[in-house]
């Protein structure tokens, strides 16, 4: 592609920070298996442990609470399945899993797996039209039979519409009944203030590549007293909870990225929110009937500062994406995980959107490299693009009569 790119898809992945790239590259040049007992093994181990300490400090956790994984998906799988299996083993009555209806697939699918294969009874917690989980429904669900609940899992902030969940209410509701809470904080880190200890959470998922860190690495932060059944069995490198040779360079990079993004967050949260507000204003200016999905307040406590999510009535998200892409503007129709064929977003459907509006949606997400120029590029393009997409949208929904 020779066109200049405008990257508005930081929720999918972010450019690696220069300092992180340096850390990872430097460490890749050094030999060492962190489990080896000799000097180069110890040197690798030292990097791992210093990374663990720095990451823990940045997230308000203790080093011993950090379990490194191959990324957010593995951490979510470990948390959901590991908690369920441990709680269920301790008391066979604990079969209920309470999960918000707007979880990322990395939580959604493990939960469904537990229902399909391990007799879990899943209750999908409803959300309001902004995508915020209904705490009263959670409380009612818990109270109905607290002894049968294995875990609660509610993400910190939604990856599609950016809605920040009322986590402290969720945690206090669950803890009243001694039920552990997991939260996927992949989108929250670097955008919102994240403090594990203060959150009261029992387990929290973190990913590297969403905060300017490397791909293929993440962490599950989990309180020491929480029992987890492992997912990957083997050498037991991460305290017997996770096996696999430690990826020292990636771990160093993850830690550096989390530290940097947490340090910047107070400033960058404000900066991104202002940029995002400009973006929303520009889009609504160019396309007055566009619908801003998620919480309209723009308050950091309610919405991710980097998130803007719209439905463009009469358009197909796919068409918008194609047209913007041709203009060098990169965004997403939702989660980037789907294998090609767009399904109506379960998040929007849970928020009450019809499948047509759901398919007419587009997410713009800002991150550490976002600039005013990005917003200006989108502002110039969005009007004509939506106009064209509407033509295509009308054409495409017209049934051919034979």
């Amino acid at each position: 592609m020779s066109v200049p790119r405008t990257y508005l898809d930081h929720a999918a992945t972010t450019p690696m920070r220069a300092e992180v790239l340096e850390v990872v590259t430097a460490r890749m040049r050094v030999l060492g298996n962190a489990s080896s007992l000799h000097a180069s093994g110890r040197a690798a181990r030292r990097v791992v442990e210093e990374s663990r300490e720095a990451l823990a400090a940045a997230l308000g956790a203790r080093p011993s609470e950090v379990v490194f994984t191959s990324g957010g998906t593995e951490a979510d799988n470990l948390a959901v399945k590991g908690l369920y299996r441990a709680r269920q083993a301790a008391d066979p009555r604990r079969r209920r899993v309470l999960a918000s209806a707007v979880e990322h697939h990395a939580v959604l699918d493990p939960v469904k797996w537990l229902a399909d294969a391990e007799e879990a009874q899943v209750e999908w917690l409803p959300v309001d039209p902004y995508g915020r989980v209904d705490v009263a429904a959670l409380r009612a669900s818990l109270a109905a039979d607290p002894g049968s609940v294995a875990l609660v899992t509610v993400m910190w902030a939604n990856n599609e519409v950016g809605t920040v969940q009322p986590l402290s209410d969720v945690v206090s509701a669950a803890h009243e009944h001694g039920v552990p809470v997991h939260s996927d904080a992949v989108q929250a880190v670097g955008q919102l203030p994240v403090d594990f200890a203060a959150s009261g959470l029992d387990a929290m998922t973190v990913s590297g590549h969403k905060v300017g860190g490397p791909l293929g690495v993440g962490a599950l932060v989990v309180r020491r007293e929480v029992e987890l059944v492992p997912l990957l069995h083997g050498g037991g490198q991460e305290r017997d909870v996770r096996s696999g040779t430690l990826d020292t360079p990636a771990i160093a990079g993850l830690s550096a990225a989390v530290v940097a993004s947490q340090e910047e967050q107070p400033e960058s949260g404000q900066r991104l929110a202002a940029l995002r507000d400009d973006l929303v204003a520009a889009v609504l200016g160019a396309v007055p009937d566009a619908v801003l999905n998620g919480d309209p307040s723009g308050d950091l406590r309610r919405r991710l500062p980097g998130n803007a999510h719209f439905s463009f009535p009469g358009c197909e998200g796919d068409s918008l994406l194609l047209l913007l892409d041709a203009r060098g503007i990169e965004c997403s129709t939702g989660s980037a995980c789907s294998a090609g064929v767009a399904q109506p977003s379960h998040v929007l459907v849970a928020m009450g959107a019809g499948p047509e509006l759901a398919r007419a949606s587009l997410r713009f997400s800002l991150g550490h490299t976002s600039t005013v120029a990005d917003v200006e590029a989108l502002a110039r393009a969005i009007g004509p693009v939506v106009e064209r997409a509407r033509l295509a949208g009308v054409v495409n929904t017209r049934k051919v009569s034979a």
Partner: protein
Amino acid sequence: MRVLAAMSGGVDSAVAAARAVDAGHDVVGVHLALASNPASLRNGARGCCTLEDARDARRAADLLGIPFYVWDLAERFRADVVEDFVAEYAAGRTPNPCLRCNERVKFAAVLDRAVALGFDAVCTGHYARVVDAGDGRRELHRAADPAKDQSYVLGVLTAEQLQRALFPLGDTLKGDVREEAGRRGLAVAGKPDSHDVCFIADGDTAGFLRRSLGAAPGAIVDADGTVLGRHEGAYAYTVGQRRGLGLGRPASDGRPRYVLDVSPVERRVTVGPADALDVRAVLGVRPRWCGPPLGGEFHGSAQLRAHGEPVPARARRTAADTLVVDLLRPVRGVAPGQAVVLYDGTRVVGSATVDRVVRASSDVAEAGRH
């Protein structure tokens, strides 16, 4: 020109897209996801819409350095092609779904959408030629490779659609296309052609219809109405079929028996000798004209199956906009629902859907069931 290349994941559409790029067009690749439940790689044989095909198409687009998207047309495909296919069989007709797909999906929904999005043309890997008639009009002609010629399934395209169709393989032999794919480093170079109906992955059309329509047992009879056997569903039989009738004893005259007629409504399959299959004329409905609509009487050739032989034919339109086609050499085993495509030399004149056939052994046109 801004060109949308429909890329199936096969070798033909990949080379077609490559040639469009070479020709200097601004090409975007699109894979049409047509299956409602796209089969994951691991649970099924190949059909045209598997994830593996999407991946192959994407790899080809990567290699060509063109943007690539997957368009979800499953809903349209289901409504316009699959349901039509089942309904036609249920009515005792024998449809051609590829033709229907070209008519209603590829050169309708896809083309329309492409045009709306600013594209000038849709490019496919069909073996057929679009020739400039000199007066701004474009003509559809048979491909240079007679064994691969697909002009028959494109005989439903209108002049308007032809204006925006690009078939870069029309001049080339299939073997050369494979060789070219290899030369270009396209991984699909050695991929086998798909032959069967794409949405019936295992090739078992009878089974597919049985699942779609349920069992409908009935009798297999001869021309006199004598019951010779039983069947589980008339739709599983095709006019002209010889094998799999399971009649046990041979005909009294010792000659092989063929399916002459399929009547799902009456749950009746009629069998008889080969010569009773010969058809000397067909009545076509819903004509489509690739160029100017037929005026007076047409003299040329007609083709009744995708890989059938063309036969000399005469045709004329009737007042009710149906088409009567006299086949100057009888054609064996024509079923209602098939398309009759008229050719003037290599040029496709137009097409219609066979509604009734006139048997060589009879003087009466035989009606298809509606």
